[in-house]
């Protein structure tokens, strides 16, 4: 196993639910609240709490939109979120010796 500074692990992303959210958004770029809830199989409250933490870290943006009369909550990954996620994945890969830098 390669040496890796555990302090470099991003706590905002490290939570399993938040890691799942970030992984999904890193590929999908954006998703609706209900869609994320279905994918992650978590409750509304749980998802909201984790989304709030990611939003506070400026890793995602949350906006309210309308599809006709139906309100939608759209969650999108931000550029800083993208960078943080890439760095997190690189860190994990580094831990098990898969890093490109190795």
């Amino acid at each position, binding site marked *: 196993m390669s040496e890796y500074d555990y302090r470099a692990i991003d706590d905002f992303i490290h*939570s399993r639910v938040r890691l799942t959210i970030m992984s999904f958004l890193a*590929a999908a*770029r954006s998703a609706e609240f*209900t*869609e994320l809830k279905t994918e992650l199989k978590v409750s509304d409250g749980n998802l909201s709490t984790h989304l709030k933490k990611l939003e506070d870290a400026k890793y995602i943006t949350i906006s309210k939109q309308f599809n006709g009369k139906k309100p939608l909550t759209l969650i999108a990954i931000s550029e800083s979120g993208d960078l943080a996620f890439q760095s997190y994945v690189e860190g*994990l890969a580094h831990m098990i010796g898969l890093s490109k830098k190795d």
Partner: protein
Amino acid sequence: MEQTNADTSKETRSPETDLALIRAMMQAGRKRIGVDGILLVVWGVMLTLGFTAQYIVIMSQYPHMILEIWIPVYVVGFLLSYLVEKRNPRTPTENNLALKVYAMTWKASGISIAVYFFLSLLSDTFDPMIITILTTVCFGSSFFVISVITGLQKLKFVAAGWWLLTALFSIFNTIGPETLLILSAASIFLLLIPGYFLRRMLSVEA
């Protein structure tokens, strides 16, 4: 997608299990958006071939062929698009505004250009300037929409590239054989290459 319950924080975690989770969720994310760039690559290649073939025909002694070039381009393009969609089915568009908008935008662009092209040729009112402007406006708008729904800001530069061509063709108001070469190059640099990078970016294994 494999069943992945994110709310299992108490289970044993390791970098390996985290990477497996990341990989599974990224695959789900890619399926969800469907913007994997492959269709842009397909149409980038087809349009480059079409514009280049038309340029060669116009500059050569061959009789002018338009339908003979563009019908195969459209047929092969739509056939390849169908095969790509069949091989990589997207998640249902229900409750997926982004995917609906993405699909609608490209379909609207493709259908508008195809309808004008074939109807104007059949009614003998074909104007190369109109289809050039229509194509660049539609492609620019489509990339702008993709940029907004995916959050990939760099795609706005691609949209700007198409709109810059719209402005240039409108200002100079002349369409000649060189226009075909410009559109051929645009199909490479503003369709095929962005599609390739989009695909590469979203295909990166976690």
